[in-house]
């Protein structure tokens, strides 16, 4: 199958485009048409087979062990989506060649990302693997992020981009978990297999479906996650037309349509889909009605339509499925046509505000006619495709037709769809009126005529809306092929312009009549809109979430990251006591291990001398803790060290004792030199409770280790390995076992420790030498920045300040200006 190559073609084109744009300007977009156009040609050539039920498939292994493979499978639903994604894509890329100007900032980047998006979206709709779908899905989120933030100098664009990404990719994460759950329950990550043989027994299946629906709802801007879509309108209009009307936002609907044949009957799928779809339809339509910005009007219209699509795609009946295929295509065509129209208006007239546009219909009659056609399709006026679809949708929820749904629910949905359709008609009419009508109160603007090639894109898309409506039977085989798995009760519904005098036709007429009334009474509607209390905005919820997260993060981090070394060490000791320490207590309490007691030859000491030495150690330790002056503390510590050396000597390890005495002496001598440069008393030692806690922690840790040693020595299971050394001493060529162990049996350890010592020596030497050199550099005028940085992190007053916590998120600032790369000095 050619599809992987077509995807690769998208990627290659994307890589070449920045360079091409630099050479040829926006005309390079014409080349960008190539991959999507080739995809359309390819998919059309395979269409007869696909519609006949023989999907085009191919597969590339990626991570078979995890089930992450690039499996592709183009069936009827995918075919419809590919036509939409690549067909509309090709038209829009052509439009871009006229929309952008030579020398505009960042067009090369935009072109590349746009083509990458087209490829990613193609991947979403053509893959048969849940993980691969997720891969392409998130790629569309990322490219959408880059495209919304295209004009990155605007704060608004940066915010909208981040918000859209956090929402769609953030809800993508639960969806990923849902995919994994579904795949593990179903034993396969191939969508076609899961849908064909849905696992129904598992109690986790509803959880998986809810998680997946959450991701789909966020992507397809369902209420209450719809807020990101109007925000995304800061992107250039062709981007909005493509991503946020025709293609990307359909991703969620596509996923719902993809899974519906297998899972529509699993609770709570249908309830969720219908509830959220209906709410989205109504709220979107209602809000579209009050927008002044034509683009925002269309954006809320898109939200509303996405609710409609979700409803149809998820309802899980044959009629709804047929309607869903039609609606996916219909919406893609008319909405992108309308967006491109707004693009032309904005481009030529420099505004897209209804309050500032007048008389455009007379000046651009072709564009106006095209927009009127597209809007008619949106409003559901015959003979447009939108009408055909709306008929089917009404049919789907007519009492008695909605199999698998309680009659009450079907009636409620039908009412909702009717209401939303009326709103849709009203805002469609308002769009055409707002963009093109003569308005007495508005003065006309002068602007140059758009070129024919510029207008061609919206006109051609509107023409498609008209043609597919009039010739709806051409789309019918596609819809039938997708809807085949649903039970039609022997009477499958067909897409057609004329079904005879059905109840649905009557309802359509009613919608149009009330819609016209609503449009003519628009002043009254506006008054009601203004009078309505503002509903709690979902966007506020997003901001609340973000702010709460940052505030919480700041609070937690400022408390924990204190910057104090004694605290860090204390926590480590506490962990030591809490984990192994507590376990040891359990061992003692439950008596799992026999505590070695007096009965088994227990002795206090071997010789009384041990007692004396031990007393020395204990006394010096206690005295050290109580000492506030540095020098006496040092002397006490070394006395303790000598005490330990004495213990070694008493236990028959003179080598060890000797070494320790040497080390202790040396350390003490060095430290005495260091002390000369330090204050006489400890300034930073904890006092009061802090000190008591420290002493307690240390004592407890010591006790823990001592008791462990006591128990473990007693519980030794085997003879120690060291007994094996004596018989081999001769072989090793020596008599002194300690020497042999160090120099032969475990020579690698000794060598390693020598390396450690050598490294430490080199490090100290270099530090001392370098410090001298650096000081010279510093005196001859060091880099001021580095000085500042170093001083900043030195602040010990406010612990948080030393830690570079963000001030923006609430308060104390961090001047821990990062120390400059020392190398700049």
């Amino acid at each position: 199958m050619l599809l992987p190559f077509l995807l690769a073609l998208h990627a290659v084109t994307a890589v070449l485009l920045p360079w091409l744009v630099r050479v040829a300007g926006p005309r390079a977009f014409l080349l960008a048409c190539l991959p999507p156009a080739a995809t359309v040609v390819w998919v059309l050539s395979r269409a007869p087979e696909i519609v006949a039920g023989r999907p085009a498939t191919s597969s590339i292994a990626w991570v078979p062990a995890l089930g992450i493979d690039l499996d592709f499978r183009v069936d009827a639903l995918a075919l419809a989506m590919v036509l939409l994604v690549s067909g509309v894509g090709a038209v829009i890329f052509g439009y871009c060649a006229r929309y952008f100007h030579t020398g505009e900032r960042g067009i090369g980047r935009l072109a590349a990302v746009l083509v990458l998006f087209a490829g990613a979206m193609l991947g979403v709709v053509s893959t048969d693997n849940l993980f691969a779908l997720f891969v392409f899905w998130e790629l569309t989120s990322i490219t959408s992020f880059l495209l919304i933030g295209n004009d990155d100098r605007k704060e608004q664009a940066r915010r909208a981009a981040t918000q859209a990404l956090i929402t769609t990719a953030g809800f993508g994460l639960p969806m990923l978990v849902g995919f994994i759950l579904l795949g593990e329950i179903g034993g396969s990550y191939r969508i076609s297999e899961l849908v064909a043989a849905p696992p129904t027994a598992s109690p986790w299946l509803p959880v998986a479906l809810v998680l997946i629906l959450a991701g789909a709802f966020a992507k397809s801007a369902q209420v209450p996650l719809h807020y990101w879509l109007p925000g995304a309108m800061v992107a250039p209009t062709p981007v909005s037309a493509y991503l946020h009307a025709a293609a990307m936002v359909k991703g969620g609907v596509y996923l719902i349509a993809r899974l519906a044949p297998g899972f529509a009957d699993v609770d709570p799928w249908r309830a969720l889909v219908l509830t959220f779809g209906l709410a989205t339809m109504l709220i979107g339509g209602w809000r579209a009605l009050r927008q002044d910005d034509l683009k925002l009007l269309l954006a809320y219209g898109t939200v509303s339509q996405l609710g409609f699509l979700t409803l149809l795609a998820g309802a899980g009946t044959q009629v709804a499925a047929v309607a869903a295929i039609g609606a996916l295509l219909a919406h893609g065509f008319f909405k992108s046509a309308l967006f491109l129209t707004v693009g032309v208006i904005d481009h030529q007239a420099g505004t897209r505000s209804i309050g500032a546009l007048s008389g455009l219909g007379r000046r651009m009659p072709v564009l106006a006619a095209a927009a009127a056609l597209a809007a008619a399709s949106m409003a559901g006026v015959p003979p447009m495709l939108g009408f055909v679809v709306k008929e089917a949708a009404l049919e789907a929820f007519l009492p008695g037709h909605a199999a698998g749904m309680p009659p009450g629910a079907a009636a409620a949905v039908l009412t909702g769809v009717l209401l939303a359709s009326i709103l849709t008609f009203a805002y469609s009419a308002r769009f055409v009126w707002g963009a093109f009508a003569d308005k007495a109160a508005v003065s006309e603007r002068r602007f140059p005529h758009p070129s024919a090639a510029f207008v061609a894109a919206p006109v051609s898309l509107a023409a498609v809306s008209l043609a597919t409506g009039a010739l709806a039977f051409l789309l019918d085989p596609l819809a039938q092929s997708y809807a085949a798995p649903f039970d039609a009760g022997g009477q499958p519904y067909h897409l057609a312009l004329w079904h005879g005098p059905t109840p649905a036709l009557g309802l359509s007429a009613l919608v149009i009549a009330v819609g016209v009334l609503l449009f003519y009474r628009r002043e009254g509607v506006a008054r009601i809109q203004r009078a309505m209390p503002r509903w709690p905005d979902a966007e506020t919820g997003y901001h609340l979430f973000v702010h709460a997260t940052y505030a919480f993060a700041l609070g937690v981090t400022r408390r924990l990251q204190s910057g104090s070394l004694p605290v860090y060490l204390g926590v480590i000791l506490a962990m030591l006591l809490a984990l192994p320490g507590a376990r040891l207590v359990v061992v003692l309490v439950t008596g799992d291990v026999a505590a070695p007691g007096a009965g088994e030859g227990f002795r206090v000491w071997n010789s009384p001398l041990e007692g004396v030495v031990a007393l020395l150690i204990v006394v010096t330790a206690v005295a050290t803790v109580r000492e506030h002056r540095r020098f006496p503390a040092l002397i006490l510590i070394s006395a303790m060290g000598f005490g330990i050396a004495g213990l070694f000597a008493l236990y028959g390890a003179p080598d060890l004792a000797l070494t320790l005495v040497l080390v202790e002496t040396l350390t003490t001598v060095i430290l005495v030199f260091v002390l000369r440069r330090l204050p006489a008393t400890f300034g930073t030692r904890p006092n009061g409770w802090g000190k008591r806690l420290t002493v307690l922690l240390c004592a407890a840790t010591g006790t823990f280790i001592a008791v462990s040693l006591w128990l473990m020595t007693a519980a030794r299971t085997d003879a120690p390995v060291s007994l094996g050394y004596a018989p081999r001493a001769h072989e090793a060529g020596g008599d002194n076992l300690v020497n042999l162990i160090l120099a032969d049996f475990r020579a690698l350890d000794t060598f390693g420790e020598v390396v450690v010592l050598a490294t430490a020596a080199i490090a100290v030497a270099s530090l001392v030498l370098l410090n001298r050199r650096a000081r010279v550099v510093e005196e001859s005028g060091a880099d001021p920045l580095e000085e500042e940085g170093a001083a900043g992190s030195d602040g010990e007053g406010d612990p948080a300040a030393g830690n570079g916590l963000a001030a923006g998120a609430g308060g104390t600032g961090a001047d821990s200006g990062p120390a400059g790369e020392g190398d700049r000095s």
Partner: protein
Amino acid sequence: MNLLIAVPFVVPLLGAAATLLLRRAPRAQQVASAVTLAVVIADSTLLLAATADGTVVASQAGGWAAPLGITLVVDPLAALLLLVSSVVLLIVLLYAIGQDISGLSRAVPQVFHPIYLVLTAGVCLSFLSGDLFNLFVGFEIMLTASYALITQAPTRARVRASMIYTVVGLTSSIFFLTGIALVYALTGTVNLADVAEKLGAAPAGLRMVLALLFLVVFGIKAAIVPMHFWLPDSYPVAITRISAIFAALLTKVAVYAIIRTQTLLFGRDDVSTVMMWIAIATMVIGILGALVQDDINRIMSFALVSHIGFMVFGLALNSVAGIAGVLVYLVHHIVVQATLFLVNGLIRQYVGHTSLRSIRGLTVVSPLLAIFFFLPALSLAGLPPMSGFVAKVALFQAGVQAGGWLIYLGLTAGVLTSLFTLMAIFRVWARAFWGTPLPDMLEARAELRRGPDFVGRRLMAATTGTMVGVGLLVAAAAGPLTDIAFTAARDLLDGRAYIEAVLPEGAP
């Protein structure tokens, strides 16, 4: 084979000696270091090829049969980590060389190369060691070298940071040593395979104490919450090449030690509940820290802590799939952390720091830099099609397979952490890379372009690009990588192959 096993430890030490002698000849020193690491890479490749099917090979140092002498062991896990580490070490070294050539780093002394190679030897020995005390020696070599490296180009901030780093490091070493003493007290041996066998007869309660003790010991160095505080206070302050290699490798060596000890020695003991709670705390608290930082290096350091939690999560599952997920995550994370810290080093060229407060519009200043940041950032956030995505899927899938309320809680924490990582990363992008560049950044760019240090800067950019490429390669080769990870995980959980390779006729 014996020789091949010794190479990753011995050759870097020879290289260290050579570069110490060559310190008056910078160019020769640079070539010697690079060649040394290239040899280690070649050797690791051979070792991986020999063990990829699950073979375990042991080599008795000095010819004394285990458990008398010291055993070096290479299994798929060790070979895989050796290869990835040595590749990252070489690339970071080349970056450092580029920086030295460019003259941007006069303050770095000539002992950098020897100490860096000693660090390499320590890392490799830690992976290869089949002996608990020798593992300690490997850690000590690595840590001593790291103490030396973190004080390179000392400023007051660096000295303060290295204080924290060194004292915490020594604390963990003391308890490591204590742990070894306790193990010897209980079993009378320190050979890992021998300990594994003899622990079987030891009382379960005491085994548990040891398991938890080693979890804490290595947990300090792996920076698991709440023993992570030292990391964000020390790593970001060091110079780029050093924070890059620390972030990439040092915590991962500790994670390796956790994997090795918890599977081989304490496979019978179930500390998974404790581990899962640690994983949850580490993931969440780490990433909360990343959200509120203003310095890119600090953001990356907190994210590093947080993502250690992902690895602990996988370990806590105590299943083949879980451990395989950890291994994939390890490889991914080593590469991605190194890349991001190198990129931060490139950012410093333009502004002299990495604070978000005064960096704007980097996409305009350097589009290439923007791409270099964007790709690994996606990977860090676990977004497809990067390696981070595959690693996360591996872990989540293992979690779902295992099931249970605590694991689902862990999964939820993982999802939240992923979301917060996304927020933290894209906050950096939106603030530092988007927007209108500050005038002094454009000036700095113009100055750098005029500067005489062009070759060195090219090398820095090229090595960073290579590192980004390695990240993409990890994603592209995720299939074979995952297969090796599964093989290694089966070996680890089974343990027999390891023990039989070290003690052919059973314990003496």
